[in-house]
């Protein structure tokens, strides 16, 4: 089957684009007006107490800049690793038919290897988010 593009060349004279631009302008203006009204209308009384962070009604302890120890970086790394899978699978999916069964076999073994590594990671406790863990 021949590849039939759904869009022709973009031209600034296409009437659809003009209306899109007007629409976008209106959206920005509306948002602007709403934001400005919300910011300007009403009474403003600023004092140090109001600007202070709320911490259950008590003064927060001063000078606290602790590091972020939450194990977010582990999650982030795992996400990155497994997200790469998506890049391969989607590109294979687009070209599935030309690649044929050989391609299918390749991608299946790739998914299998990733699956195994997930099992390994799980068994190793890398996904545990528990007390006393990093």
């Amino acid at each position, binding site marked *: 089957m021949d590849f039939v593009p759904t869009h022709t060349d973009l031209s600034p004279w296409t009437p659809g684009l003009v209306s899109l631009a007007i629409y976008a302008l209106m959206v920005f203006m509306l948002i602007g007006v709403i934001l400005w009204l919300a910011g*300007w*209308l*009403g*009474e*403003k*009384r600023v*004092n140090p*107490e*109001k600007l*202070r962070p*709320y*911490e*259950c*009604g*008590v*003064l*927060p*302890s*001063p000078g*606290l*800049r*602790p*590091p*972020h*120890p*939450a*194990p977010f970086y582990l999650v982030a790394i795992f996400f990155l690793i497994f997200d790469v899978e998506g890049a391969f699978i989607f590109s294979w999916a687009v070209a599935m038919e030309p690649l044929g069964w050989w391609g299918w076999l390749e991608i299946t073994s790739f998914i299998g290897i990733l699956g195994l590594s997930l099992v390994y990671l799980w068994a190793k406790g890398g996904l545990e988010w528990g*007390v*006393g863990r990093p």
Partner: protein
Amino acid sequence: MKLATTPEPNIADRIINWAHANSLWPLFFGLSCCFVEEAVAFTARYDIARFGSEVFRGSPRQADVLIVSGTVFKKAAPVVLRLYEQMGEPKWVISMGSCSNSGGMYDVYSVVQGVDQILPVDVYIPGCPPRPEALLEGLMTLQKKIRSRERPARTVFHLSGGNQGSSGGLRVDGRDKARDARGPGYSGCGIRGTAELPPHFRGSRTDLMWTPPAPALELSAPDQQLAAVLAQRFGAAVRPLAPVTDMLTLETDPGRALEVLRYLKSEATPRYERLEDLTAIDESARNPKADADFTLVYHLLSFGAASRLRLKVPLSGSEPTMESLTPLWPSANWYEREVFDMFGLRFRNHPNLRRLLMPHDWVGHPLRKDYPGRATEMAPFTRAEAEQFQPMDAAELLGREGDNENLILNLGPHHYSTHGVLRVVLALRGEEIVDLDLDIGNHHRGVEKIGERQSWHQFIPYTDRVDYLSGVANNLSYLSAVETLAGIEVPERAQYIRVMLSELFRLSNHLLFVGTFVQDLGMMNPVFYTFREREQIMDIVELITGGRLHPAWFRIGGTAMDLPRGWKEAVSNFTSTFAKRIGEYQALIDRNPIFLARVKGVGAISLTEAMDWGMSGANLRACGLEWDLRKKIPYAAYPAFDFEIPTADAGDCLARYRVRIEEMRQSLKIIEQAAARMPEGRYRTADYRYAIPSRDDTLRDIESLIHHFVNVTRGPKLPRGEAYAATEAPRGEQGYYLVSEGQSKPYRLRIRAPGFANIQTLPLLAGGRYVSDLVAILGSLDYILPDIDR
């Protein structure tokens, strides 16, 4: 502002006022008892949502109405002020209840005499506590005020003039308010009753009265044996005191006390496993003069023998030092800190001897006899003080100044899940709790000090407010001690009425527990159902006593009145449906996987630890110990009832929940039995020496009339002596220790509160767990602030 000077509202004013008045957003902030009625106002029967105040906001940034619901404590006043300041414009303040309006019943050193000294107030709601309807009325009054007096348009459009939000200024003592307890025109005389108060007792007329001595207790065989063994082992260092009214009482020297206590805990027969209570007495105002300046009083409890023992240690000096008991009982930690705070006694080798209830920068020791009891004897607490005396810094509290590894976070005093003004200070690594400490005393109403100036009768209403969810069950604890001390026989009918009402309040308390506990865990529904049944109970309580939260309906020797017509139908209407309701709650909650994941295995404590830390009530029974004062050391009419003691083994949040659910079934059984077998007869003793004579009798004979007059005005004279009595209150063992000098008022009144001991275990339960677990644990302990701080 005068109405006459307010200009006519223009169309913009009208629109803005309409919007303001119909969408008021109250802040979710409870200070005290009043908040319970406030919370009831947003459940189904009262439905505050009708007024556009649907969901109370958890953050001041999202709220525009501050309902100051309850007592404003000097320790908590900076918090109240900060929350108000952190709300956006425009904002309004409703002062709910007598305490917030004027200090109310609590003219005491720790209470601000009216929140209008630190905040501008728009609407005052009278009552103690006001009913939920009164809050709705207050809200409508505020709406009316907004519509009629506010002209917000010019303010909103940044033009000069116009007004919106709280416009009244602060009230200043002597200018536009009077804190004088005597009322206007009485400045020449003393406050009622002052003349007979400590330290002088000059005007006391009770010295002219006679009462029989306190009944002497015949010591049981094991007690006599123990006294003999102690005499053999310690010689003259341990002296049994006689006569006693309630338990074996020993006196020992400060140097030997720890040794004696260690022996009693680990070697004696029976073993006294629990430190029931530790407190002190200031002996300086004794009449005749005492040898010691202070006495430390240790109350111990033996689970095995179901008996108690009192050990008294006389101390001399203005600030005597005593060896700390913490190596023996970890629970002594807070008890000793409280003694230090209130009396100024020091404890050697105490891990952390600093103030517990009073603010860290407080001056003086309030329970000393020479310390002024009334707030009105002190300078007014104004906005300047509220800005100056800030709560102790969290990092300093934890001893972690300069800790750059962990996040130091305050949870409370203003927080959904702290159930009152409890402040938990956390050191967090991620979400894990590395370190935890508590800052209590934000709800310290100085009730033990008040006890020393109220007559034996007058104190009853204060007991209701000690555990404000348990109503008359508090009266029972106090009266048990009074009646032990004076040897008063309570008629059987009165005993049954007392049992029935106390059990109704246990149900009411447990219903609130179940609802709020699971709500803290994210389950919104059950609280609406449990409050529905709670209101049914409140209706019965109202029918019988005329009050809701604080009936103050028991009297010395019985109750205030007989049961009214129609009580039985009301009770049986409730009991016939309630068993099914418990099943419904369980169907809603018990198998919910999220609920189970949040509570199972969370916050577990072993039985030995629970005993060592002085836990009681359902929290103790959840660790597997079948211990319930109603069965083990029975009081009132409980021996006549057939019920069981539910227990669980795990000692975790789930176990505590399950025990309470089962306890509701048992309470229901007791109520049914009490209603079915309610005996005939007097509802109050005929011993008019102590009891208030019934109206019929006062109209018939002069003796009763005289006794009525004396007992109501001056108060009955109780014999010299001391007595401790505890009951199984809904929240655990609540005990009253009374020391009488033969006056119409106690010389010392001490409350052993279950919550105080229970909450002290929090670092043990929540340390090393997540913040979300902490919320579950707090809910499961079922504490209440006035019960902790008193």
